[in-house]
């Protein structure tokens, strides 16, 4: 399994809701079924971004096929630089049905957020200190499409 990583500028460059909209824009085209599912959790995700959990650990998208996607948010003075360097994904990881998402969350909020996500199958929350199991990459990246960030894979 390979991993693609991206960072999205959040507060103060964007509000928490606008930051989530930027994340959804990376993951799924406007008007798609996947985009609708992602937009349905906007308020929940915006709260996690405001608390900066998404800076400490990534949002992880596990597609039906293709590389896993990890997205972090940057905050404060780092955010302005991040925005200038934001790179779209070569392909939508949510294009095929069967994708899932894991959102990072602090222990103080996890019970509330988990209950709120009950109505959104396939989108789950995990303790921000927990890692996500990632298999060793079997081969290198396809040229021009994506790259493997091994350091990112080591991060929680």
């Amino acid at each position, binding site marked *: 399994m390979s991993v693609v990583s991206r960072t999205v500028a959040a507060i*103060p460059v964007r*509000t928490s809701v606008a930051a989530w909209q930027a994340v959804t824009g990376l993951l799924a085209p406007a008007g798609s079924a996947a985009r609708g599912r992602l937009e349905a959790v906007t*308020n929940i995700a915006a709260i996690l971004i405001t608390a900066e959990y998404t800076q400490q650990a990534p949002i992880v998208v596990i597609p039906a096929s293709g590389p896993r996607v990890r997205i972090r948010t940057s905050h404060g003075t780092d955010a302005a630089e991040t925005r200038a360097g934001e790179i779209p994904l070569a392909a939508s990881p949510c294009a095929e049905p069967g994708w899932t998402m894991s959102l990072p969350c602090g222990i103080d909020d996890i019970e509330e957020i988990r209950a709120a996500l009950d109505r959104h199958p396939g989108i789950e929350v995990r303790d921000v200190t927990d890692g996500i199991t990632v298999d060793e990459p079997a081969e290198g990246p396809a040229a021009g499409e994506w790259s493997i960030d091994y350091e990112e894979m080591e991060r929680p």
Partner: protein
Amino acid sequence: MSTAVYVNTVTYAATHVATNMLGSIRSIVKGSGLDPARIRESWDILEDGIATWLASRHLKAVTLEVYDPRKSGENLVGRFDFTIDYGYYPGGDGDLWLDPDTVAYAIRKNGAFPARCEYRIVADTAPGRPDVRGWATTTYRSTTGFTRHVVGTAIGGGSLGAGLAYYSRSGT
């Protein structure tokens, strides 16, 4: 170029203060034993209004009003105000910061509310504010019989400061 930098600084400060003020209100809601679902489900509307009116300099204060729906008439049981000071840092180039200890202190001093209590968030704005989807005009509940306690500035950015105060029933 200097104009563009100025615009970005002002916009970033407004976004920083707006989002962190809303996050602090959510902390107060949770820390006071109130149901966080209401603020979570309205997060996009609340953030949009607060950020818009901060950027346009129409926002004067954001208030968390806690009330007991079982009581008729004057049913306020508690209140937290974030009051905006547009000249907190006269130079306008202050850091972006949040002091969670100030918020935690207010929560601790105020104590918890009974589980039956509900709340709403009220924005006090100057005339001429731009309209924002999801917000309606209202008036504050009466604070007669309450004492206002100023805690201090909880959030700062650019020239902006957001000072926190809470109300307790007088004589308690």
